[in-house]
């Protein structure tokens, strides 16, 4: 299906661009985003996107902002995926009471209103972005857990796993050697989609001013634009650009996730 490849290729290119932007920020940004120039400058030669209320160059802010989105998104997704995979695997493999208990816990976690909880915790803790990633990760593992569990239930019944068990291999061995590799390609798309959710959540938290003030994140840029008169005065370059970046970065991740899902389905059809 050619159109899917077109989209996923676009997604890959976008993702890699943002990745490069994040990794090579110091080289790409025209200025250090913390250096002050004249505030509230509109876009011009010296400052392609103008300056904010503190006189920081917006373009540099934008470029460095990719780092926060990437780290928080990745960190949260990684944690969520690790926990989710562990829970799902154990539940799917051991079944019975373990399964019931773990799924019960999963259902409860699913019902916790995530962003409100993050808001409450962030209000109390005033966390760094590592903390934010941690909190998000500890809430988001549920959907991964479900998917991993259903796949684990499937794989468990397959011939080679039964054989391993009959041969007396330890559970631990079976889980790591037999089950995990086969579950991997289900985890990857979920991982990508978790990154997407985490990025949007991070942007939302920062927008509320709960982000880490020592790091420039896109959400915080929009927050400042909103609260420091950028919106009212129509300084679109201040708040539209970070918003666009968030959308595009998330879009690229989602497209990659979809592409991985398509691939996984295609391999399943062949089986």
């Amino acid at each position, binding site marked *: 299906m050619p159109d899917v490849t077109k989209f996923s290729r676009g997604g890959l290119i976008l993702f890699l661009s943002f990745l490069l932007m994040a990794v090579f920020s110091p080289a790409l940004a025209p200025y250090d985003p913390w250096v002050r120039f004249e505030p509230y400058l509109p876009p011009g030669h010296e400052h392609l996107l103008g300056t904010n209320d503190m006189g920081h160059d917006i373009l540099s802010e934008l470029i460095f902002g990719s780092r926060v989105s990437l780290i928080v998104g990745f960190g949260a997704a990684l944690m969520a995926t690790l926990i989710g995979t562990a829970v799902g695997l154990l539940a799917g493999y051991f079944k019975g009471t373990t399964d019931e208990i773990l799924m019960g816990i999963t259902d409860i976690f699913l019902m916790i209103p995530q962003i409100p909880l993050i808001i409450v915790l962030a209000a109390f803790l005033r966390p760094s972005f590592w903390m934010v990633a941690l909190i998000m990760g500890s809430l988001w593992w549920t959907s991964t857990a479900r998917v991993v569990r259903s796949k684990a239930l499937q794989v468990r019944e397959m011939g080679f796993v039964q054989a391993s068990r009959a041969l007396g291999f330890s559970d631990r061995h079976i889980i790591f050697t037999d089950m995990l590799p086969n579950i991997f390609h289900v985890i990857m798309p979920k991982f990508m989609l978790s990154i997407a959710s985490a990025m949007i959540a991070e942007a*939302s938290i920062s927008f509320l001013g709960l982000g880490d003030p020592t790091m420039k994140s896109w*959400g915080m840029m929009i927050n400042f634009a909103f609260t420091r008169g950028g919106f009212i005065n129509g300084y679109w370059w201040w708040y539209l650009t970070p918003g666009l970046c968030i959308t595009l970065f998330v879009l690229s991740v989602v497209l990659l996730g979809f592409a991985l899902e398509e691939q996984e389905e295609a391999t399943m059809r062949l089986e």
Partner: protein
Amino acid sequence: MSHTAKRWSRYIIAIVIIFSLNFIIPRAMPGDPLTNLLGEDVILTDSTVAELRSEMGLDRSWSQQYLDYWWGILHLDLGYSFHRHSPVSEIIFSRMKWTLLLALPSLLLGGVLGTFLGALAGWRSRRKGQKMQTALFLAIYCTPPYFLCLLALYLLSFKLDLFPLKGFYTTGSAADIAHHLFLPILVMTLFSLSRNYMIMRGSVLQEKSSLYAAFARAKGLYDDEILFRHVFKNALLPIITLLAMDFGFILSGALFVEIVFSMNGMGNLIYDALLSRDYPVLQGSFLIITIMVVSANLLADLLYSSLDPRVRWQ
């Protein structure tokens, strides 16, 4: 344990755990629990502080405090906001109706349109025009809701001056309220729609390759007939729970919409409470939102059971 008993117990346990979390957080967080419970920047004399400490039961044992906490909740006593000089429950309930006015129509519209369009998208996934539509909704899905609001505000209110910039009403007439609500509801609906669209599309894509869909075609049903007579309901059932779980997410989105549009609902209440570190209001809001989300999940669960004959006949 019977199926129904299991289900109900899960919900009750969820509420107990989340409410307990709410109890633990202010007491476990760094700092003086009293500040955590009162909020910061609250100016009181030392004697008042001591009084409050004993009133709030902070000098009693933890287990006693826990029981008092539950006692209070069952009496709808969510504490007192010193910033606003009023019981938290009163504040929340007066704001909640506005949030519901914004959220409920959006949820309904977004749900109906989203599942309908999403089903068509999954069914016609290969057609050219469909891909454009899917790409559009995908883009909306990836946009943080508050950014969507900013865009809408900027384009339609600021530049084109079609809609008012803030608030729920200026004159208070029904038409006026509708005018004010139009843009926020539009954005919320798009937000909710895009999520339901994606989920439903995925489900229909899966169901498309099922044998009963092939048999329906073999029976002589043509295209959309197969979708709406057979696939739609089968695709909808497994995702009802998913859609309900999304409710929490969408409600959070509503909060952001209110903030951007400067509307006096729970969103701005939470925002202000955040800025002034009015913890009682924050916690109270959290509780209320939890109840709403858990109820939505429960409703969806019940709905699912009544719709899927396989569950009914267990």
